[in-house]
């Protein structure tokens, strides 16, 4: 059987998996019938790892042990402002890892961010395997276009921990455009407007003769569907407080139910003009005093409550278009991605801003995973997606620190890779014999506010007055995204260089250990499932035997097959029942055979009894 490559949209809030079936990218539903799975991982009180819907549904009541939106953390150093912002916003504890990376504490265990993402990837893999009926080991995983090398590497590492070979990381807007353009002729610039559960991204792609190029990307990692839900939760809670003088948000169980209901109502309002929110017995303030929440919300009310959020997305679009020097009239299509784009107001404002009706032919929740599955199939079989070439761009500017702590850009963001750029610098002090090249990535003019990628020293320069000695610094980014920086003394030709290897913050040994531990966990979980299956089988046999027992006793009464033998079978049934109750694997194995013999004997006795009586 040919090896299948799955496409995974590893989202901040939800994830989705797809596979190319023949010529059709197919999104695979999970066991609950949902085509997206929450990117949420929790540790229950009993130490059980919870992933997906079950983890999401207890995210408020078990807030300290539930990790969500870890995509905002992946591949980022502890000191990063984004990490500190997340730390202030989430209830689960974040701590500094041994390599300056981020670790998450759930119950008493510490997890790296790629580990948490690995559990989500593993869940997606399991969903695909169940559907395909075969083991899957290769995947294409999508990431936001702005992800840097470290974040991409961390995502790859998450795949390894999950037992997946991530054969390609592709940008989410590229994947969306791929799915949009699959099987149809698309040329020109398209906008991918991606408003998901936790983040907003807008990207402009240029598609020419089957070549997909991201020409600009921007977004807000703290703007998404959850913010819309929160507005609705607050509105409901405030209304309830006005009526009953009770703040539902102070009670975790009530808040969890409110959040669930708010999200559902928000989704419903994309299809209907008003919906009911009915939460019976949401709280009680005393013994047997039940309070119920019942409200009707209209679509226009929701739009009013969240208008500023929707307008923020448009503002980001405006800046991105200006940044890229593109006018709405230059665009061939606007593709909507992310569940929030189902909201009528979002579609309306997007349509108004871009001056065209957004495309509704692709499924906003599924399009990214579908694109990833197309790319995955194309990588193992070029015929699966002919004439398709993905060009990546560097998501951030690259440069070095110069005198005064300023950041000098050599390669601007959104430059198509591979690329190379050089610039000549001079010494800044008299008799300076060496220069330190400190390489950064980012958009701030202050070097220290950007991400440090590495540093090296070029020594042996001729002593001279400042500005006399020239050093050429060259940046190169290969097609694989590997960054090399070199500095050459223009007089002597002496050269020093570094290759920036992306790091997720984990060492090779750590990744191997985590992958092995995860594998062990999976084996143990499967063994537990097997015991449970056997327990259920034995339980059914015991039930059947116990149901037959009175009849058998009646038939055998007064026969040579006496009371002693019946005592023996009663003992067998007791042992079996006990093994079932205790979920004792050894006990279940031990009783299986005598129990089956007993049951067969019972069936025989009852059948012969029937024959006799007939």
């Amino acid at each position: 059987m040919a090896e299948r490559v799955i496409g995974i949209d590893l989202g901040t809030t939800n994830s989705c998996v797809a596979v190319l079936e023949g010529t059709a990218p197919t999104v695979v539903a999970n066991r609950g019938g949902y085509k997206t799975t929450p990117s949420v991982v929790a540790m229950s009180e009993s130490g059980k790892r919870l992933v997906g819907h079950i983890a999401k549904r207890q995210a408020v009541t078990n807030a300290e042990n539930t990790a969500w939106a870890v995509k905002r953390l992946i591949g980022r150093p502890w000191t990063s402002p984004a990490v500190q912002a997340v730390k202030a916003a989430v209830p689960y504890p974040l701590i500094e890892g041994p390599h300056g990376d981020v670790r998450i504490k759930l119950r008493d265990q510490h997890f790296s961010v790629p580990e948490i993402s690995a559990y989500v990837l593993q869940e997606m893999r399991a969903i695909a395997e169940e559907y395909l009926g075969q083991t899957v080991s290769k995947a294409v995983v999508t990431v936001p276009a702005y992800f840097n090398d470290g974040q991409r590497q961390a995502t790859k590492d998450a795949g390894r921990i999950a037992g997946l070979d991530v054969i390609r990381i592709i940008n989410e807007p590229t994947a969306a455009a791929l799915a949009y353009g699959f099987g149809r002729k698309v040329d020109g610039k398209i906008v991918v407007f991606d408003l998901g559960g936790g983040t907003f991204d807008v990207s402009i792609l240029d598609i020419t003769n089957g070549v997909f190029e991201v020409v600009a990307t921007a977004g807000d990692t703290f703007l998404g569907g959850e913010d819309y839900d929160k507005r609705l939760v607050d509105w409901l809670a405030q209304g309830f407080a006005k009526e009953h003088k009770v703040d539902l948000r102070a009670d975790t169980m009530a808040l969890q139910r409110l959040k669930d209901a708010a999200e559902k109502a928000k989704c419903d309002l994309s299809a209907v003009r008003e919906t009911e929110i009915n939460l019976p017995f949401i709280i009680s303030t005393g013994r047997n005093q039940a309070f119920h929440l019942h409200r009707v919300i209209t679509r226009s009310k929701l739009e009013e409550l969240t208008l500023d959020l929707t307008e923020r997305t448009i503002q980001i679009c405006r800046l991105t278009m200006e940044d890229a020097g593109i006018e709405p009239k230059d665009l061939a299509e606007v593709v909507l991605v992310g569940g929030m784009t189902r909201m009528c107001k979002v579609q309306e404002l997007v349509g108004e801003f871009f001056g065209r009706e957004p495309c509704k032919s692709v499924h906003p929740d599924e399009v990214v995973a579908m694109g990833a599955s197309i790319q995955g199939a194309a990588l193992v079989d070029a015929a699966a997606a002919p004439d398709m070439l993905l060009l990546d761009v560097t998501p951030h500017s690259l440069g070095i620190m110069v005198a005064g702590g300023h950041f000098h850009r050599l390669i601007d963001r959104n430059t198509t890779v591979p690329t190379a750029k050089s610039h000549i610098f001079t010494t800044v002090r008299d008799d300076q014999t060496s220069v330190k090249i400190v390489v950064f990535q980012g958009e701030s003019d202050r070097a220290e506010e950007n991400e440090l990628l590495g540093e090296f020293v070029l020594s042996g320069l001729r002593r001279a007055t400042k500005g006399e000695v020239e050093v050429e610094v060259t940046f190169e980014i290969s097609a694989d995204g590997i960054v090399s920086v070199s500095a050459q003394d223009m007089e002597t030709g002496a050269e020093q260089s570094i290759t920036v290897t992306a790091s997720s913050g984990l060492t090779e040994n750590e990744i191997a250990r985590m992958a092995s531990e995860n594998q062990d966990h999976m084996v143990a979980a499967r063994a537990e499932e097997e015991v449970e299956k056997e327990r259920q089988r034995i339980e059914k046999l015991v039930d059947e035997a116990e149901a037959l027992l009175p009849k058998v006793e009646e038939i055998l009464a007064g026969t040579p097959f006496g009371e002693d033998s019946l005592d023996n079978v009663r003992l067998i049934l007791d042992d079996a029942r006990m093994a079932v109750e205790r979920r004792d694997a050894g006990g279940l194995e031990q009783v299986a055979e005598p129990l089956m013999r007993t049951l067969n004997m019972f069936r025989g006795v009852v059948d012969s009894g029937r024959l006799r009586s007939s």
Partner: protein
Amino acid sequence: MAKDASLELKQLIQRGFDHHEHGREHDALSDWETALKLDKRNMQAKRLVEFAKKRAEEVEAGQHTPPSRRDTIESPIPQFLAALTERHSDKVTVPYEGQKGGDPLGDRAAPDRELYTGGKAKKSISSSGDGGAPAPADTLEDLPVHADDVRASATELVGECRTALGENRPAPAALAAELALQLAERAPPPGVDDVVEPSRALFERAFRAFMGNPLACPIRAVPTETLADHGLDQRAAFLMSRMDGMTSLADIMDGSGLKRFDAVRVLAALRRAKAIDILPAI
């Protein structure tokens, strides 16, 4: 399936739940069947249709009694507590599920259990609240109860729980555990925590055994609004809100965020009150 059909399917399933909670089994079956027609592969709809058909047969055969206020876990408690105040009483008989007949929990042998209260006369209480039982009381502090009697009863209940569990009678074991816990929660100083608290692991086992297969999936059998009438609190309402016929008891317990003990105790109370129905494991 188109988006609107998906929404319609969800609404049909939800409406079916509402019918089922109000005892309108035929309407529930009709909605779930319509949902299944919309998406023949929808496992939730499929399971609910199977359940509703089986339930309809049970009702027709008189094998299923709809839940009522009489089945609450609270009813024996105030009377039991009140019985403790009668200084001349000797034993209080607590009725168990198995006595009522047709109980779906399958408790094989559930004889009366006698709870010693220290006096001499023998008193039997019934869960129906009739027979001139003393007025319910919320706390023992309202009643002239003797601490020694409470202690003796608590000890007896712990023993009863252990014995019933050992004899594979989970329903009485769970009821004894619940009574012991409620006794501890309401006992006047110095209380009976020293008797009851060390037995929490035993009680948890009793509740788990009573709940049966942890992979079975519950659905609501009564409207959540009525839980307070059944003596249940908002935790019960919260757990009920997690039930959809697809999520297993184990997942509800693990995914509730409640303490494991509390979650299984409340689930046991819901089952005892017949506030939930259980669908087989997926």
